[in-house]
């Protein structure tokens, strides 16, 4: 590096640049948070959805599945599982969820195993409500297709 470019100049670029871009980042964050209600359907967050999110976390679902593409890549994406498995109706999805959760573990030799989390009917219903809510989120058109 050229001698006329000193350590002091490099340091000033570091401090000045970081602070400048961090302030822009904060401003964009402020704006994003203000815009979020248009896309997150927060008015549809019922108590059941809230309980469902806690169940989602408490059973570490993200340890195998992804949700809007984030999480583990061992098991299917679940943001849109409501659309994929629900057959277009809430009743259909809840029936699927009830059957699916209670059928675990499937014990098919060699197949990836989902554990049985011993959820009761109310809890499965809450989880289904949470996943129904996530399916209605506007994540800028992601995922590309129904398979997630």
């Amino acid at each position: 590096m050229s001698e006329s470019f000193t350590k002091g100049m490099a340091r000033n670029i570091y401090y000045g640049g970081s602070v400048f871009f961090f302030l822009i980042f904060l401003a964009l964050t402020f704006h994003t948070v203000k815009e979020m209600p248009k896309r997150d359907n927060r008015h549809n967050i019922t108590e059941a959805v809230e309980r469902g999110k806690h169940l989602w976390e408490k059973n570490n679902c993200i340890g195998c599945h992804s949700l809007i593409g984030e999480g583990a890549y061992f098991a299917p994406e679940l943001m849109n599982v409501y659309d994929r498995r629900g057959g277009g109706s809430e009743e259909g999805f809840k029936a699927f969820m009830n059957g699916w959760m209670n059928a675990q573990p499937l014990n098919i030799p060699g197949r990836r195993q989902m554990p049985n989390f011993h959820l009761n009917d109310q809890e499965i219903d809450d989880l289904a409500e949470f996943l129904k809510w996530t399916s209605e989120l506007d994540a800028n058109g992601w995922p590309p297709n129904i398979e997630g």
Partner: protein
Amino acid sequence: MDTLKYQSQAVAKPYFIFAMILFVGQILFGLIMGLQYVVGDFLGGIIPFNVARMVHTNLLIVWLLFGFMGAAYYLVPEEAETELYSPQLAIILFWIFAAAGVLTILGYLLVPYSTLADITLNHLWPTMGREFLEQPTITKIGIVVVCLGFLFNLGMTILKGRKTAINMVMMTGLIGLAVFFLFAFYNPTNLALDKYFWWFVVHLWVEGVWELIMGAILAYVLIKVTGVDREVIEKWLYVIIAMALISGILGTGHHFYWLMTPEYWQWVGSIFSALEPLPFFAMVLYAFNMVNRRRREHPNKAATLWALGTAVMAFLGAGVWGFLHTLSFVNYYTHGSQITAAHGHMAFYGAYAMIVMTIISYAMPKLRGIGEANCNKAQVIEMWGFWLMTVAMVFITLFLTGAGILQVWLQRLPESGEALSFMATQDKLEIFYWLREIAGVIFLLGLISYLTSFFITDKKAQA
């Protein structure tokens, strides 16, 4: 033999040793998971995949933190030219952190996660069950306490001593680490907000402040092994971390494409994260440049190899493999696929696992009273470890990338109705997963070789 400049640097030793022990655990659980990818029911009832993954990723984070702390305790006193403010505090915090870490991992393994949530009173302040932040709330509080004590100890040391650029950058990185971790305590019911601020921990750590820590450690080791003038090395350090933060802060936007966020993030994130490889490329130029311009032949060849290796592998893993899927129109199809996993593996190994092994390689002979360097035989075995682990990681990354491309082709690109389902796609990727597992076994052999090098002593010298 007394080989330390400041006696209190010795507190780094238990940190480094414990980091290596956790590293072994991380790799063993990685192998379990890798096998579960192809033999789905392997250990199914005993160690479900989600538990193995949590142990694998949490051990990684914790051993890197132990490594960073050890590095700081080692280099800060020497840079500040004074003894550590309180060696006792460093040792007490070591035991607190180690106990909290072991108890948390045992909690993951011995009881169902939901039971762990109940007994740690997660309902009082729910923070668990989010990727990488699975630790019980009480453990998270423990991490904060340990970090505060650690920063206090280092801060007091720097205050009474010389304030070098390396120390200031290291300290800024570590304070940033502690500050951004506080977002782990924010878990709103609204998933949109939850996910947005989750990245304030994850991205601003690994693509932000951790790069400062990496840069500071690399600069320190390069000064030591090359003897190049501090002014030159510190100037490079500032340029590199300036580029890292200028690109990396708004680069956070590449995680906001597919959240409940305005579209402008697709532009902001694409442009700035496309610049994120630059600091890593500069790091490669700088590491090789400094070694070529060396003013001394340091006997620790292994440490120099690690220093060059971490720059190259960080550039490939974080820089090139990050760029592969960072542009929003590419990421639309690759988001959350095996391509993400490929990038994650090489980036973490290249940038962070290797920088910790760089400082360990440099510092351990001194901490153990051996001298400037291990004997030649020990260094050869250590370098075997370097090459086996590094080449194995290149192959792990290539196989996962192959899996990822095929996954995108089969599952993401076709229209609904024509695309293969997730599980059907996974069956098609089997060969890649087997090859990845074989590369993982090679990695383990490399790790064994690396660890063996610590037990090889020069018998002739002792006699």
